[in-house]
């Protein structure tokens, strides 16, 4: 639909501060009396701590305090309270904080930290859920089952299984009996790192007045506030958390990650702010990882391609603490059906403790991991059925009237995946495939994808809006700007809702829990949907206030009044009007008496009727869906096995584009991120659980020359929830690339891959085994 401001390009309000080097990120913050800390990490990924000798560190130059986990009696976490800020009796992963030095400079802290001596008694190490689940495996948490956890979770005491989530739809596994063709497969999406270019960091300051002030490169200030208040026994209102500019998130700066550790350290030097910023190595070894999901899938279909049943087991190597991976596992499990309807589902997800950094959110949140399986399986099933892979998918798409695994019915307002498929098919398959030549095999592959947010019952987003004397508007929200461009979205949506140019909307530049309205956390591609809704609600309230004042001024009833951004006027005689600028602080009459309220409003918006899963694991747990289709056109070098993605096409039904330039940038970034996952990126461990590639030169992020030509297009079937019909798109582009590329590899070479990344060595070996390469 045509709107005045929505759907147009506006430059980001934060671009100028970022190109001039003036944007303030966490490490750029300097506070009076600030101290620095260096954190000691263990030599083992799983070991008992026998002793810690800090005597020499305490005598080193500049040292103010040496801190260990001794005496730490609290656990924290929002889903399972299994986290500790610093290791107490044992270490569970290679990046766990064991001790820390607080000093006047970072160099002094680091030098002293090196002198701390720790004795360990090594324990068995598991980096894969399959090993950690074996009967008799050493327990990573002896307390499993005893920790406080959400009532919806079911840990298995005496094992390393932190949670089992099961979803049954229809006849469940029995539904497989209705199938005429059955296909099974096992797929692995290994651990990866979000690898934002800005590493994690935090500053925490315990003040003499018993309040706590913190700064963090995070997207969940309100969670940090509540967690610190709980852990340190102060009112939530006495913890103040600031979020400066954030240099990329992609998931791993959500949930509480490093803040509790820095707080624990800072609590030993009350009165002084303590800063910690991760080295790149620490960013890999000591913050949240992504993925680590093995999907074992069985799909049953009729001979005509009608899907009938799906069984899947998700084995999630969740890392040393289950608080953050548990919801990723659940999302991976109930979304493993992809954008298809299955009458019968039996899906089980295991979140398993392993001796790796904890897994947390990674852009896509479980969807790309299990839909890697679904989208490879759909191609393989089409082959088995001798059916066109497009036809098989189209026959089973979650179109209008279909019901997903969770039991949610799809409506027209959930989007048109058929249209996305039609466009991609025409763009990519409407031409002849490139013929094999002397040096290269050529292939193309596609994937149809779906994503919903993983919310929480209280996951709301607040908005405070005030109109200023000149009619400009200040909007304060608590959405963390991590690069996604939400400030532009706010300006455009607020401008549209208030009928004023976006240039007159000033958007907050930082989050401060003391002033910002509540927001759960900026995750799940929900800011545009929920935040946009909150803006419209606030704008409606603000306009109602203006109309109430105008009704008094114009001596009429509110419902006879119209608002156009500049004036409020009588509907049957627009000449009778009052200017907004004259009523937005109330209306001052000739005799100086002021009537009416200030034009300011507060609102918030949740996903409608979002619920916990019921006893069948079903429920209104997705609510908002975005569908899309993506395709890769690739080239494989015969000599080296190197895979080049020449072109990548993405089409999503986003309901309504808010800002064409920004949405294209977001999709392209997501695509390249997942090309990285498909071809290069994997966190590697040695047999002792040590991460062997915690650096950019070993953990390869895609560079300029590895980016394909991108074709990005949007279908716009208006959504029912989001502002002006817009729906979420922040994460969705990461889901299709890996299966599309793997499907394209098959198309090019006839080789089926079941795990990523497909590096040149792996590809070359597969070609050699196939005897396709003549040396």
């Amino acid at each position, binding site marked *: 639909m045509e709107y005045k401001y929505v759907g147009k390009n506006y*430059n*980001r309000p*934060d*671009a*100028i*501060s*970022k*190109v*001039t*080097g*003036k*944007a*303030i*990120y966490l*490490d*750029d913050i*300097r506070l009076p009396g600030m101290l620095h800390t260096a954190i000691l990490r263990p030599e083992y990924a799983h070991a008992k701590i026998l002793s810690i000798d800090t005597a020499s560190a305490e005598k080193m130059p500049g040292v103010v305090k040496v801190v260990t986990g001794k005496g730490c009696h609290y656990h924290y976490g929002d889903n399972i309270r299994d986290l500790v800020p610093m290791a107490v009796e044992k270490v569970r992963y290679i990046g766990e904080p064991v001790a820390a030095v607080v000093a006047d400079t970072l160099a002094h802290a680091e030098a002293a930290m090196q002198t701390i001596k720790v004795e360990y008694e090594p324990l068995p190490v598991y980096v894969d859920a399959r090993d950690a689940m074996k009967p008799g495996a050493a327990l990573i948490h002896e307390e499993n089952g005893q920790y406080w956890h959400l009532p919806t979770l079911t840990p298995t005491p005496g094992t390393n299984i932190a949670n089992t989530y099961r979803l049954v739809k229809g006849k469940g596994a029995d539904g497989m009996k209705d199938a005429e063709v059955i296909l099974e497969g096992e797929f692995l999406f290994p651990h990866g790192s*979000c*690898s*934002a*270019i*800005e*590493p994690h960091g935090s500053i925490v300051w315990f003040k003499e007045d018993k309040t706590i002030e913190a700064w963090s490169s995070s997207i969940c200030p309100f969670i940090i506030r509540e967690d610190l208040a709980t852990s340190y026994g102060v009112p939530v209102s006495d913890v103040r958390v600031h979020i400066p*500019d*954030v*240099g*990329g*998130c*992609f998931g791993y700066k959500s949930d509480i990650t490093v803040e509790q550790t820095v707080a624990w350290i800072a609590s030993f030097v009350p009165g002084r702010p303590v800063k910690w910023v991760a*080295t*790149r*190595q620490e960013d890999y070894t000591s913050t949240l990882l992504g993925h680590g999901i093995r999907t074992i899938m069985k799909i049953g279909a009729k001979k005509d391609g009608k899907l009938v049943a799906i069984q899947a087991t998700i084995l999630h190597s969740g890392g040393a603490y289950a608080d953050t991976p548990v919801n990723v596992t659940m999302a991976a499990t109930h979304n493993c059906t992809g954008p298809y309807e299955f009458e019968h589902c039996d899906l089980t997800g295991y979140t398993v403790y392993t001796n790796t950094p904890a897994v947390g959110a990674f852009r896509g949140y479980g969807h790309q991991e299990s839909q890697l399986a679904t989208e490879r399986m759909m191609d393989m099933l089409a082959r088995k059925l001798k059916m066109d892979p497009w036809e098989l998918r189209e026959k089973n798409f979650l179109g209008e009237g279909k019901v997903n695994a969770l039991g949610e019915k799809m409506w027209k307002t959930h989007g048109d995946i058929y249209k996305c498929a039609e466009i991609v098919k025409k763009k990519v398959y409407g031409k002849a495939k490139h013929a094999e030549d002397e040096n290269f095999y050529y292939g193309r592959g596609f994937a149809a994808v779906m994503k919903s947010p993983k919310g929480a019952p209280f996951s709301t987003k607040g908005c405070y809006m005030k109109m200023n004397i000149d009619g400009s508007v200040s909007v304060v929200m608590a959405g963390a700007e*991590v*690069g*996604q*461009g939400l400030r532009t979205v706010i300006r455009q949506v607020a401008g549209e809702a208030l009928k004023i140019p976006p240039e007159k909307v000033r958007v907050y530049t930082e989050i401060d829990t003391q002033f910002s309205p509540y927001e759960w956390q900026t995750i799940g591609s929900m800011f545009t949907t929920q935040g946009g809704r909150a803006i419209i609600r606030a704008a409606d309230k603000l306009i109602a206030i203006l109309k109430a004042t105008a009704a008094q001024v114009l001596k009429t009833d509110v419902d006879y009044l119209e608002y156009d951004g500049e004036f409020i006027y009588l509907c049957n005689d627009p000449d009778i009007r009052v200017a907004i600028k004259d009523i937005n602080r109330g209306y001052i009459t000739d005799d100086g008496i002021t009537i009416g309220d200030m034009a300011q409003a507060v609102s918030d918006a949740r996903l409608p009727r979002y619920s916990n899963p019921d006893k069948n694991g079903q429920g209104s747990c997705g609510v908002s869906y975005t569908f899309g289709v993506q395709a890769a056109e690739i080239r494989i070098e015969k000599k080296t096995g190197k895979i080049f993605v020449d072109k990548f096409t993405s089409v999503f039904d986003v309901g309504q584009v808010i800002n064409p*330039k*920004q949405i*294209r*940038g*977001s999709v*392209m*970034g997501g*695509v*390249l*991120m997942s090309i990285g996952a498909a071809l290069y990126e994997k966190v590697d461990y040695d047999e002792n659980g040590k991460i062997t590639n915690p*650096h*950019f*030169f070993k953990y390869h*992020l895609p*560079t*300029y*020359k590895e*980016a394909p030509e*991108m074709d990005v297009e949007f279908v716009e079937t208006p959504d029912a929830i989001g502002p002006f019909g817009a729906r979420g798109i922040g994460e969705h582009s990461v889901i299709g690339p890996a299966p599309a590329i793997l499907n394209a590899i098959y198309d090019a070479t006839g080789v089926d891959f079941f795990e990523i990344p497909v590096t040149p060595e792996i590809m070359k070996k597969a070609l050699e085994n196939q005897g396709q390469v003549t040396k």
Partner: protein
Amino acid sequence: MSEKITFTLNDVSTTVDVEPETLLIDVLREDLNLTGTKRGCDNSTCGTCTVVVNGKAIKSCNTPVSKVAGTEVITIEGLAKGMELHPIQKSISESGAVQCGFCTPGIIMELYGLLENNPDITLAEMQNALNKHLCRCTGYEPIRDGALMAQKLMQDRK
């Protein structure tokens, strides 16, 4: 032992009294409070710490400050003239090249080193330079677009 090292920093003669092996990035950020130059990695891989020394883009995270004694150093803070952005800053801010912005200063300084020296560089030269910088947000296309816009502006300026 610390020693006095003098260089021109963003057109201003600057003297610091530091250990000569201190890295330039630390002198800029910690001693001179110029936090526009960013640190993104431990091993000189990401490129976000790039500054321009005697007209050439270098990584400040692997350059000891002693090496810049007597040189002209330009950082991201030195590009805009008051309120007027440098053409590269203007183009990069408008092309969609800025998302999180953390790689942005390094990329702008890389382009500054290239284009101020020769605005007529080939696309291949530009691509080789951009390939030295990691960006996790954009997919690089908007960075290329911004670089090309900047090149055009700077060619027209001459």
